[in-house]
């Protein structure tokens, strides 16, 4: 287990460095820079040079990277030259929305996906084929399109859920929940499809193994075989899929936040992309990478918990 944790830690640290360094290197390769974006088209060479100096853009790229890194390690992600806001503060303000979406979707998709998978593996027949169809359709539907259809149905036509916006939990828990229903539904379909299929395939595989036959032959109850033994064995690959889903949900939130006009990190990423606000997008990328690192770490711990062979290592 400790070897596994160390290996994961090494990958995580190199990942954080790689993403942040890559962002810096990409910046240095491109014509035009933040100074020009701020100044617009009318500027004097002196003013431009002064601003570049002010933003440390005249320094070599590795110096700037080191500068950014040494600040970032102390929690200072710099200031957006476009809006003048602190990158760290801005991210902290918006993190809640994104986390609510990502974690909410993970919980919903895992519960429904695993339940569907188990049910279809055990019952088979029509339900099994339904899960097959659902997983194909779920893979193919773009979340942003699905989100729009949900808005059309439940917000524009039926008016049961708000079409846009996010209500902070502390303002009104009921409003918070309501504002999350449609975005989470749009995001969860893909994950449900993936998880239902993975759970079903995994359960069918485990249920055909020798130890299930032995347990059955010696009188173990069917519910114990399904939940205590088969599901626990099938859970190992399912956890991998949950981890992958969480990571891809970070991308999904970018789109769904755009559809529902929610002020989360995804919206911030898109906004700073269009504005060439590099310190901001650097901060967002770092935050997302850190979330990925934490998720992968949690997945590895879950492996160890589920699989005694991994734990022993």
């Amino acid at each position, binding site marked *: 287990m400790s070897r596994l944790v160390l290996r994961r830690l090494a990958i995580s640290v190199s990942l954080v460095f790689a993403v942040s360094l890559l962002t810096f290197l990409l910046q240095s390769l491109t014509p035009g820079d933040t100074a020009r974006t701020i100044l617009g088209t009318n500027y004097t060479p002196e003013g431009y040079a002064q601003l570049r100096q002010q933003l440390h853009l005249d320094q070599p790229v590795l110096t700037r990277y080191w500068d950014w890194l040494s600040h970032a390690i102390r929690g200072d992600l710099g200031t957006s030259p476009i809006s003048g806001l602190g990158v760290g503060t801005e991210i902290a303000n918006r993190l809640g929305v994104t986390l609510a979406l990502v974690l909410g979707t993970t919980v919903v998709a895992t519960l429904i996906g695993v339940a569907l998978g188990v049910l279809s593996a055990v019952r088979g027949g029509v339900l099994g084929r339904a899960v097959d169809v659902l997983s194909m359709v779920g893979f193919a539907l773009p979340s942003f399109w699905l989100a729009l259809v949900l808005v059309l149905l439940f917000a524009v036509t039926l008016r049961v859920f708000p079409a846009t916006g996010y209500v902070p939990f502390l303002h009104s828990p009921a409003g918070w929940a309501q504002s999350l229903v449609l975005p989470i539904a749009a995001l969860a379909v893909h994950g449900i499809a993936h998880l239902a299929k993975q759970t079903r395939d995994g359960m069918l595989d485990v249920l055909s193994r020798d130890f299930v036959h032995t347990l059955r032959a010696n009188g173990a109850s069917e519910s114990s075989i399904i939940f205590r033994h088969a599901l626990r064995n099938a859970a190992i690959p399912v956890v991998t899929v949950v981890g992958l889903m969480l990571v891809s949900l970070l991308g999904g939130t970018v789109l769904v936040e755009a559809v529902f006009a929610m002020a989360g990190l995804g919206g911030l990423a898109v906004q700073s992309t269009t504005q060439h606000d590099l310190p901001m*997008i650097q901060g967002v990328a770092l935050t997302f990478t850190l979330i990925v690192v934490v998720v992968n770490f949690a997945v590895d711990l879950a492996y160890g918990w589920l699989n005694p062979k991994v734990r022993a290592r």
Partner: protein
Amino acid sequence: MRPLRAFRRPLSVAAVAYLGIVLVAVIFAPLLAPYDATDGDLDHVLSGPSALHPLGTDNLGRDVLSRLMYGGRVSLSGVAEAVLTVLVLGVLSGLLAGFLGGWVDRVIMWLVDVVLAVPVIVTLLVVLAVVGSNETAAMIALGVLGSPLLTRVVRGSTLAVRQELFITAARVSGLPNRSIALQHILPRIAGPIIVQASIFAGAALLTETSLGYLGLGTQPPTPTWGGMVADASTVIDQQPWLLVPAGVVIGLSILSFGLIGDALRDAGARQAPPRRRKVVAVASSEAKPEPGALLSVHDLTVTLPRSEVDTVVVEGLDLRIEPGEVVGLVGESGCGKSITGRALLGLLPEGGQVTRGAIHFEGRNLAGRRRSELRGLRGSGIALISQEPLSCLDPVCTVGRQVDELVRRHEGGNRKQVRARTIELLGDVNLPDPERTVRRYPHELSGGMAQRVLIAMALAGRPKLLIADEPTTALDVTVQAEILELLRKLRAETGMAVLLISHDWGVVADLCQRAYVMYAGHVVESASVDELFDGPLHPYTAGLLGCAPRRARPGRRLPAIPGTVPDPRTWPAGCHFAPRCPMATEACAAAAIPLFEPATGHETRCIHHTQVKGGENAAVA
């Protein structure tokens, strides 16, 4: 992989046809499109489908069908760029890692791990923020981020192919590495590469349209599929129809890529057997239980689905076990011994059924009952131990929990009582230090220890009959002897009967009082073990006995019965053993052979039984 087989399914044909139509429409858009993509018809703004505009118009009166055709040029060439990047990077790095191994492999796999952990969309946003709205750059970046999955596939396949003989031969003959990789390995692993590329194409299209929706790829007025959804979203309350064309085209395209990938992959894999859940046909229950017998089986006939046809694998089997008796069921692999054992437990494989006969256990007929009806009997009436003990234990559950579960099921009690009984059981099967063993996981046990645990599990319900299906086959010789000794001791202590399924005469002679010899679904001979050894009355028995290594004579070749057990679908009409039998005559093949009983308690299914000579010469070459 047989690609053609992949396209027998109507869905995959539809997927290929759909993608073909889309490709043609998109490539020849300038010729085929009814309107220019950017020309607005301001007289028909936001019209639904009409004769003039088959898919309607958008908020600027532009023809939706034409925009879809032109928009596909952007989306699909983006997908092509990404897929090409994945192919180049993934195949190269995978071949290098798999073929060269060593530090090259380690560096590449480390990179794979790092890149796989990168959040894709955000990284694409960073790229777009830096290079501006350059779709090609974004799609190439997507290809870079997607390539590790292909690297893994190619590396895995390369490793597998590299082990094969012809590659070694090519190396020995001095062919350079590059030609080996390109000429010999690449063609062999093309299948998995195509599958992966097809699946990735779907993901790439999803990402491309997502970027288009966010307005980050190719800029207006050039139409893109994602951009069309974005346009539709602004007028969602005025003309919801606009969501349909772009959404359906995107969804169907992604679906088609996925379907083609699935079909190709399934064509490469072995086909899974069809899963069916049929209620077991009700068998005739006219036969009366034999008085005094613990188990009496009469005329048991079992079918299993083979290539979707129900095939008889056990035919007209009679079997009788007295309380406390140890009975052997002997034969080569594939004779139907294990299936007989499973039929007794009501646990035939999926699709298998008892079509005829009766299974009386303690006077009750078990044949033809559903799996669930026999649940109460399993473990407490009849229990099972089988071969491959390590795969018969749940790998993620401690030994203690697995035994506990069965103890609780059969005897109940609180946690402490259950655990105490578990430890007692583990002691009964001579496991050293039961208190420590309960906390162990299966992978920490040896085969012999695992078999002892399984015996303890089987004993948890204090069964009256234990079916031991090749209980020592997978074990070392010394451990075999210990397990047999343990079974003998347990039988003496508990008085349970044992049905020992084995191909090993030594094991049978060691433990059993009587034995049934099975060949190709039939019982061909049954008698006390002594009689079988001293005077077999069926050429198959005689042949089997001659083959037993323990009876071999030094300096002489170990004999073997020529030929193999026939497949159940090709059983001959008469004696099933006739094609391999040195004594076979025309009469043997003419009609089914009944059981004869030349001596009390000694039955044989051979018309020439008076001529069968004992020991090691009869059917042996």
